[in-house]
């Protein structure tokens, strides 16, 4: 065993950010990820921990309007940020169109990956609208919606149940409905 150096300063700190429109003040061990802060400290258990290493997308949330893996980000690094989780996207009584489409198209089986999938799906439509290119974009200057674009852009969200084709149907419908 190696003897590890001990930190000289404090190993916890205060942070304030906004989650689903509400300001949250926390004092956290620096090691707490944004995902663990949301789930264990704020009680928002919609965002899921699949791998904790950026490999599955179950922890996807929106930070300042962009999707990120909340497992690979420290909570204390989010001072002043605006965070939206699946709970902020819609509720059972007031579903977001993407949530509604996932339900109608059976875009899940066990549902574990679903909050991350829905956060990503919404972000994907926005990223295409903003003209952000992807690996399958033929012309970097003309980004348009296609099944191939959705598949590529959703590749950071794994689904062990393999509900991919129904998710694609749901996303296609939301895009068409706009």
């Amino acid at each position: 065993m190696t003897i590890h150096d001990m930190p000289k300063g404090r190993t916890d700190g205060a942070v304030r950010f906004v989650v689903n429109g509400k300001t949250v003040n926390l004092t956290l061990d620096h090691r707490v990820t944004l995902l663990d802060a949301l789930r264990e400290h704020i009680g928002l258990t919609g965002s899921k921990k699949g791998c904790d290493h950026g490999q599955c997308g179950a922890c996807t949330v929106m930070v300042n309007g962009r999707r990120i893996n909340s497992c690979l980000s420290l909570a204390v690094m989010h001072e002043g940020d605006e965070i939206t989780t699946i709970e902020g996207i819609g509720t059972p009584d007031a579903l977001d169109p993407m949530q509604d489409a996932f339900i109608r198209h059976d875009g899940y089986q066990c549902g574990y990956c679903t909050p991350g999938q829905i956060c990503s799906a919404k972000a994907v439509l926005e990223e295409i609208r903003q003209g952000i290119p992807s690996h399958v974009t033929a012309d970097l200057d003309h980004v348009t919606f296609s099944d191939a674009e959705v598949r590529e852009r959703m590749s950071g969200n794994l689904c062990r149940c393999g509900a991919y084709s129904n998710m694609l149907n749901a996303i296609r419908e939301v895009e068409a409905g706009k």
Partner: protein
Amino acid sequence: MRAFSYERATTPEAAAAAAVATPNAKFIAGGTNLLDLMKLEIEAPTHLVDVNGLGLDTVEPTDDGGLRIGALVRNTDLAADAQVRRDYPLLSRALVAGASGQLRNKATTAGNLLQRTRCPYFYDTNMPCNKRNPGSGCAALTGVSRQLAVIGGSDACIATHPGDMAVAMRALDAVVETVDAEGATRAIPMAEFHRLPGDEPERDTVLNTGEFITAVTLPAPVGGRQIYHKVRDRASYAFALVSVAAIIHPDGTGRVAFGGVAHKPWRVEEAEAEMPNGARAVAARVFADAAPRPDNAFKLPLAERTLALVLAEAKE
């Protein structure tokens, strides 16, 4: 994860000074590589210097017609930047070939350059690894080496640089700009930025302790057809087995750098004279000193054929 203290830096010089002031400190940018490794205790900094508040997040023209890319420009923004898409499409293509949408939204230019190897034994803390634990040996030499280097390795390490962006930057002759705690700056050509493992595989790059990357500059656009082709085990969201970053002019001349084959993006400028003569001629020169292992010998024909595909595509 080991406990650590944390501060937010306010200027690049202060960040560099903070990283030198505390032994075993590290900068944290997007955190997508560092936190992954900290969770596994492969990295165990006692202090983190958060550099996200420094700005350095714009892409600006330089006086000599090139671009200066701030160290904190996110991979998504760099790939989507209008000037990069128009003049350096190779860089956009390499960026969007890497990781996932979520990761690219966080990953920074500097962090991407400094991402550590994906050698499976580097990640497995039960195994000997000279890069993770200098002097402990290299499990890959007698282990599964499918992912690992075919050229430029040593008896101490055969890891690869796993990234995509750096391969395009190598072909584009990018330069890494840094500042240290004393405020001294330097400009390091991409060719010299990543090291070969030699007998110090724990050092991935030529950066000194506390040296902070402020920007990456690109020289004036070189034109040509710019193609990045990545071969991997699944269609998306996987590291390269082999990648080719090529710039090909109408007369068949050009440049090419290879990813996934060495401890650094692999480019042999002298071999580029063979570009008009086709992939076989180029690959023979580029990989003349290759020392593949039985598990990864396939990378040599794969690299040649991927280049052949790219050269054919450039003629379309």
